[in-house]
């Protein structure tokens, strides 16, 4: 079993903790958390060594990997400290709030010969994974254009306080939904090369964007549109949708279903000319332990597998996460302030 520690067990951290603790190849030995009630709850009712200061945990515990779920503005320093002690990391998205810092972490991990996984959970969704392989086969021809959308109801009334309303703390929809949406576009269509146009709009927040639109250009001429909005009260929970036009087909997809129209059959994927539909129930839905959706378990199962076998693949590494942060940086530069 690989020995794992946690830094931060708030909302995301506690769910990762339950999953990691249930995976057979991981032994969660230690936790670092600043909040006293949370730490006490885990100390008294769980079986973890608990720390207030993660530096002490890193110094005292022999760890193969650390799972980090601290506030966005602490990502850079915490990841850096972990990498410097030669420990493999899993970090929630976004990697950092600045492309230059993300690059620094990517290079540091390379120097130290450790790996880093970033919490881009869409890459572990079975519908998106299947689409990734259909698109990568090239059978649909070149991607002409796509639109990736992510909407949800995070900020739904006027807000002038808290970290969500502060860019420096990683607030704003661009830093919350933007990373997921851009990463999904990169996963399916390859990394964009340039942000052509971007606008950041305020709906309820006083200092940050609540909705962002961006037009991306890819090297091969593909045009992508990114659209995120965290003030959408029409959806029960965060929703990702993808639409794309190819030379010989068209697709509409979300986490639960994909519809593909084709000019010709693609027998290797069981697709016929005309409309095809695949549901998440058509794919393998079983996981070792389930908490908030299969995707979250598969994500940490990959971290587990990579700790056990360093040659195992990583679907979401520091390199791909850096590409996302590069695009976010560009969106901030291209858009002219908040409108």
């Amino acid at each position, binding site marked *: 079993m690989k020995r794992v520690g946690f830094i931060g067990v708030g909302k995301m951290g506690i769910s990762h903790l*339950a999953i990691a*603790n249930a995976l057979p190849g991981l032994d969660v030995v230690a936790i670092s958390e600043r909040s*006293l*009630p*949370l730490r006490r709850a885990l100390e*008294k009712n769980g*079986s973890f060594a608990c720390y207030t200061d993660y530096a002490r945990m890193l110094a005292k515990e022999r760890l193969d990997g650390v799972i980090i779920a601290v506030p966005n503005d602490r990502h850079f320093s915490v990841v850096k400290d972990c990498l410097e002690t030669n420990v493999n990391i899993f970090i929630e998205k976004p990697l950092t709030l600045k492309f230059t810092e993300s690059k620094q972490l990517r290079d540091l991990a390379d120097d130290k010969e450790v790996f880093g996984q970033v919490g881009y959970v869409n890459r572990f969704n079975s519908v998106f994974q299947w689409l990734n392989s259909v698109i990568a086969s090239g059978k649909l021809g070149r991607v002409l254009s796509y639109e990736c959308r992510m909407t949800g109801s995070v900020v739904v009334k006027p807000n002038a306080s808290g970290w969500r309303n502060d860019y420096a703390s990683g607030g704003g929809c661009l830093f919350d939904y933007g990373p997921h949406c851009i990463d999904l576009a990169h996963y399916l269509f390859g990394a964009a090369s340039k942000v052509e146009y971007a606008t950041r709009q305020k709906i309820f927040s006083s200092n940050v964007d609540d909705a962002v639109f961006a037009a991306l250009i890819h090297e091969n001429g593909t045009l992508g549109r990114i659209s995120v909005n965290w003030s959408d009260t029409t959806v029960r929970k965060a929703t990702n949708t993808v639409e794309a036009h190819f030379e010989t087909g068209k697709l509409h997809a979300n986490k639960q279903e994909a519809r593909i129209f084709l000019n010709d059959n693609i027998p290797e994927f069981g697709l016929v000319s005309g409309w095809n539909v695949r549901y998440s129930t058509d794919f393998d839905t*079983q996981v070792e*332990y389930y*908490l908030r959706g299969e995707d979250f378990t598969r994500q940490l199962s990959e971290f587990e597998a990579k700790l056990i076998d360093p040659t195992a693949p990583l679907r979401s590494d520091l390199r791909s996460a850096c590409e996302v942060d590069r695009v976010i940086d560009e969106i901030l530069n291209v858009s002219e302030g908040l409108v």
Partner: protein
Amino acid sequence: MDSIIFGDNQFFGVNHMSEDKAAQQALRFRTADDIYSVLKVVNNAGIKTFMFTTHDRLEPVLDRIKKDSAFQDFKLIPCMPYAHKYANAMVEAGMFGAIEKFLPNNKMLAGLRGLNSAISANPVPVMKLLIDSEMKWLSGHNVEAIFLQNIATDLVLGLGMDDLLGEFATYVETQYGVRGGFITMNHKLLHDRLTRGVGLSSPLICSSINKIGFRMNPSQEAVEEVVQSGEGTTVAMSVLASGAIRPAEGLQYIKELGGVSSVLFGASSSSHIREFKELADDILGAT
């Protein structure tokens, strides 16, 4: 427990297979009247148990049921907590504020104020108070069992705090005289921990059980084996895997599997409700 239990997902725009379908359902159930009229169809069709999340929107619906003599033999199975309610309150008011919101003017809580860590070190007393507050608006109803929602069951299970699950079942049984059950997406793991570690000899468990193995973790075979063992009471949900399986096929699988006490199902239209009940009586035997 009845062999057919009506569920509530369709009322709140939950569909595991399609977001579009979920949106359509949300459109259909805007008011308490919309939900009440479906429950009347359910009751008339001879389905006498409703299992639901303790969602605020159901309060006026259940009030009407209480006053309607046609629902005299109708039973309720509440599932708690309604996680969004607490999550939203926690975001707005913090942990303590949230607890206070649901337990206003509670003397014991007033005594504990400022002792955050005392509560988190031993969450059992607060858990009991929260169960009581959820049960308050169900007084006068015929409650058959109380379930812990899967998000809570599975979180506690994953964190390895299994004793809390035992505390839940024991409290529900002693305080309300009904069985305490668990909804889970990890039937096998939960069953093993409850029977071997916690010491519940015959746990009441509700989980996805269906022909295609949808959400049967860690594997269809492992869950089938536990269910067939008959060591415990099983309520099967997602029998149709959100529409991926036809009703007759889904029910036939349950019958052949054996060991399932009740099937939980949901539908929006009167014809689907009646058809499912007839089919279930046919295949599983009349209730």
